[in-house]
């Protein structure tokens, strides 16, 4: 290196103030969405409504006799396919993919030994937690939107499309129904915030990403089982999965917002508690991987 080289001189320049980490967040998102695994999961999620639509279309026997009545109504209106897909995916597929992303967040970095290099770069431990969590949230949104949009598109392709009948028996325009589909995707995203925080916390406990992913997914199943047992009724309002299927309140006329609010509040509680636990665990953990 020669000091007379003008480009070399400019390369030496440093920021005088520390940046907020927006650049790192953007790079984190780029890394997340550059992974083949992420795309595989999004494609698998998109396959859920597509499979439902194709199966219903092929059997075309009309009523399946099981599950929420409005799954049957996808034959009458393709715009319901996205909602039907979300309903099917919420108990297992969405928690599965979110568990993978959130459980991998810290443990995956520890596993590839990139964690120590991120920390000495230095990214700052709290900032790393926040960025990892936000990236998981973006993935939740991408996942639910993928489901909705894939469902709506396959619905338009295979079934008649028209004004949508709500649970209240009222009929709304296509535009209104698309807005409601978007709201439901948002609702599902919010529903997954607590689970993402739990996954982040578990991810700080181990260097084995698979373990963290599995633990997160198992917890989501345990929560849903507890939610269905009448013996644990006192616990139900505190389970992060309690309001997961209450997005149906967005299909009423007028929209019933209370479950959205309660769900958001509950998820916020989980984010605060498990965010604090993750901070407690990670802020002075020895990074020995």
């Amino acid at each position, binding site marked *: 290196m020669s000091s007379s080289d003008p480009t070399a001189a400019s390369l030496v320049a*440093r*920021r005088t103030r520390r940046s907020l980490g927006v*650049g*790192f967040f953007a*790079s984190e998102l780029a890394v997340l969405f550059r992974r083949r695994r992420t795309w595989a999961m999004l494609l698998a999620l998109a396959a859920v409504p597509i499979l439902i639509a194709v199966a219903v279309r092929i059997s075309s026997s009309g009523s399946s006799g099981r599950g929420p009545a409005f799954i049957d109504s996808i034959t009458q209106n393709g715009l319901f396919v996205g909602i039907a897909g979300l309903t099917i995916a919420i108990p297992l597929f969405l928690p599965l993919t979110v568990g993978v992303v959130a459980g991998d967040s810290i443990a995956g970095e520890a596993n*590839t030994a990139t964690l120590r*290099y991120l920390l000495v770069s230095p*990214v700052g431990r709290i900032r790393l937690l926040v960025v990892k969590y936000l990236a998981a949230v973006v993935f939740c949104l991408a996942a639910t939107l993928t489901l909705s949009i894939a469902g709506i598109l396959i619905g338009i392709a295979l079934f008649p499309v028209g004004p949508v009948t709500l649970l209240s028996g009222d009929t709304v325009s296509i535009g209104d129904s698309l807005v409601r589909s978007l709201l439901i995707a948002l609702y599902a995203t919010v529903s997954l915030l607590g689970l993402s925080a739990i996954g982040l916390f578990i991810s700080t406990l181990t260097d084995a990403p698979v373990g963290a992913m599995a633990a997160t997914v198992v917890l989501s199943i345990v929560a849903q089982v507890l939610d269905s047992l009448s013996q644990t009724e006192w616990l139900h309002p505190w389970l992060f999965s309690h309001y997961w299927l209450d997005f149906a309140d967005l299909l009423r006329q007028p929209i019933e917002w209370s479950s959205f609010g309660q769900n958001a509040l509950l998820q916020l509680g989980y984010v605060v508690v498990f965010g604090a636990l993750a901070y407690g665990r990670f802020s002075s953990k*020895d990074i020995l991987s």
Partner: protein
Amino acid sequence: MIDCSGAGSSAPAHASGLAIETTALTKRFGRQTVVDGLALSVPRGSVFGFLGPNGSGKTTTIRMLLGLAQASGGEISVLGERMPQKLGSVLPRVGALIEGPGFSPFLSGSANLRRLDSADGFAPNGTRSARVSRALDRVGLGHAADKKVRAYSLGMKQRLGIANALLAPRDLIVLDEPTNGLDPQGTREVRSLIRSLADEGTTVFVSSHLLAEIEQMCTHAAVMRAGRLVAQGTLDELRSAGTTRVIVTTPDADAAAQVLRTLGLDPGHPDAPGAAVTATLPESIEPEDIVAALVNAGVRVRGFAVDHASLEDLFVALTGEGFDVVQ
């Protein structure tokens, strides 16, 4: 412990003169004390070799220096600032390779470097690509920049790890076994890279168990054994701390031994007539006086050598010869 550092830890050196200073640094894993009362003094501008056999606590020390692991006791200051309290302002000036490289296998080499660079809050976005490609060029990875790290060889990953330490201008570079897995050409390049970094004024802290390597590039060194520092100082000081021997090659071995004995040396009993006579050279006697005495005594001298103990001898002497890892 042999302490050879001139300024020394006797007077608590003002931190500004030292790139790294630790006092009574201790790390315990459960019951095992892995680093025990370490007092490192790494002068600014030095190339500091950190020597020790496997499992002696080198990497653990480096982790504590960089704030990755919490010390169980003792104090650390890096570039004049307390660690880990000032971690945020110190680490941007420190480049590091810690116990081998670590990269996301599904990203290319340059994407990995860009990611790590963006994690540094003080690194300007504008010059990122230029800095990344310059760092890659410096370690000879310019052509493999866009290859996925998954497809890198061991040595290529090691080079990429070094490139990461060079992403920004640094005041201190910590390299934990940098030549691990490198081919001879790569080893030489790393050595010359370290020298050029030192020429730029960067302090380089290299850990290794390869003595030859340390001997070739370091100005200072410290030796660890089972978590304790057993020697520290400039290379010359360390060498002189070891023994210097005179080796006289002569057919008149007995006569030569006799002469040496009269001078106060202890050549022992020559193994066989005609074998070399060796003796430890005390500081009080100059080698040329020995030669003069030999000649005066009519000893036929075929060869005369003063052998400074190699660092390897010192290393073995200090850390024990056993192959088994201590602890």
